């Protein structure tokens, strides 16, 4: 399915507000993601980045606001959205193989009861190959390194054949090989006209890896093309003055933003 209708945002969340026990986690947040871009969501710990992704996915119910995917409510467009959760959100001692995890991405096309067959397995194998993990298909998932586990998760999202990919810290704790593999994958997705929204922690690489950025700290501080909004001023507003000099040479305080 090609959804190339112009001017329709891939993801549009309006006025999202969400609170845990009266404490606002998201306060009137908009998220506007044009089609075919790589967008980073950046902000300090507790800024609500993961909450924002999970709300877009309908995993959390907001107190106010709505989410549209290609102009229609998320519930109708579920199949167009793939999710890559944080690696630590699942139990990697689960008794199964890398290929089996990737095959899970095909389940939505199967519906209840029907089992994955040869075609689902071959799609999963192809997705594993796309992230350079075909040699590990039959490996028990706890025997994979952190970076390899992350690539398995990415393959699982690829196999969903979605239009929008929501990723929660895909670069968290991965080795250099995996980081390169992920960057190449993001670019391949963009070249295919897909849209990626990723929570990202490393401020150094935002400009290199992404086209657009949303700066978030409970409220949306700024959003738009990286060149325009990823400024020292906006970062100070987001991180509360703890970050200095992203554009220039690095200095010590900057690392606080990675914590």
């Amino acid at each position: 399915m090609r959804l190339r209708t112009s001017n329709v945002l891939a993801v549009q969340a309006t006025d999202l507000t969400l609170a845990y026990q009266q404490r606002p986690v998201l306060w009137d947040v908009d998220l506007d993601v044009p089609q075919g871009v790589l967008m980073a969501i950046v902000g300090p710990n507790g800024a609500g980045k993961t909450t924002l992704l999970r709300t877009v996915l309908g995993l959390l119910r907001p107190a106010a606001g709505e989410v549209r995917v290609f102009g229609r409510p998320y519930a109708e467009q579920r199949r167009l959205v793939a999710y890559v959760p944080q690696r630590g959100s699942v139990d990697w001692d689960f008794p199964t193989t890398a290929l089996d995890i990737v095959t899970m991405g095909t389940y939505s096309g199967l519906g209840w009861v029907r089992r994955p067959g040869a075609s689902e397995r071959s799609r999963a194998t192809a997705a594993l190959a796309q992230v350079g993990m075909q040699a590990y298909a039959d490996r028990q998932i706890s025997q994979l390194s952190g970076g390899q586990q992350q690539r398995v998760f990415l393959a699982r999202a690829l196999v969903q054949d979605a239009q929008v990919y929501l990723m929660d810290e895909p670069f968290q704790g991965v080795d250099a090989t995996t980081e390169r593999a992920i960057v190449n994958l993001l670019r391949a997705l963009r070249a295919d006209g897909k849209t990626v929204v990723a929570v990202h922690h490393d401020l150094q690489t935002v400009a290199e890896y992404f086209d657009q950025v949303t700066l978030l700290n409970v409220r949306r501080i700024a959003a738009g093309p990286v060149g325009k909004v990823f400024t020292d001023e906006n970062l100070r507003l987001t991180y509360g003055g703890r970050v200095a000099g992203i554009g220039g040479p690095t200095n010590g305080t900057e690392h606080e933003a990675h914590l």
Partner: protein
Amino acid sequence: MTSAQIDVLLVAVVVAASCAIPGTFLVLRRMAMMSDAISHTVLLGIVLAFFVVADLNSPILILGAALVGLLTVVLVEVVSRTGLVREDTAIGLVFPALFSIAVILISSLAGNVHLDSDAVLLGEIAFAPFNRFAPFGVDLGPIALWVMGAILLVNLAGTFLFFKELKLATFDPALAAALGFSPALVHYGLMAVVSVTAVGAFDAVGSILVVALMIGPPAAAYLLTDRLPRMLGLSVVIGAASAVGGYWLARLLDANIAGSMATVVGIAFILVLLLAPQRGLVATARRHRRQRWTFARQMLLIHLATHEGTPTEVDESRPDHMQRHMRWPPAFGNRVVQTATERGLIVLENDQLRLTPQGRQAAREAAVR
């Protein structure tokens, strides 16, 4: 064997198999203690349903038990969702409350009914052959076998049909939700199955043994395999074998059958814990020992390689200096030197340890890693 013995064994095997299947998913979901709670609180469902239908053999009892099993799960979630109490504490609060209500109801209102709390806790599988299913006077075997057989069939069919959903919702509930498979539905479905299985089983074997059969075999199987279908199969086999073994142990000791079965489950788990080929304690200890020797040998080689051809070489390569330098006890150091010599990695010449070409190669490889 008498036909009564065969009946008891059949009931025991069927009970063990039906418990092992939902138990596997409880273990993987880290909800083992929920089986303890449910296997006790279902008693309340039985008592309440009994007041309605006044028939101890009515299937309504199982329905009542399943509902109270689900109520247990819901209450535990309500209490733990307040954020003021952890989940394990919530289980410890909810299940004694529901269970004690059942005990009070039985003791004060149903005193003249054949429903006593001893039988609930320990069960009496030895009586299973005497309670027979005989519609129109035709003897079709023990009722317990029919009830548990039906439950086993439901568990097998449910696991077969919803295998993919159970696996997905257990491994990654968020993805399950995102893909449109309600993890809550899977969760409560599984809990209903646990409740029904617990009711059917505790009539035969008592609630303590239900817990043993639900958790012990899957916990052992988890150490033996890293594939879910095999874990399910092994759980069933270990559970059934323990049930049979427990029966014979009880005969041998003239002891309570259910208690003996639970004991054998425990022994089976301990054996697996010790002897499992990859993850067992013995295999792990062996692996660590081997790694310790390998590491010590590599330290020796790297040390020799570092000082090879330097002015301090003469001092640095004397065997006694080596042991002081590495802080090895003499016996251990001698063993390291000896095994390295046996492998042709070093030679002793004029009280000096020298690397052989293979030893030099091994040192380089070890240092690179």
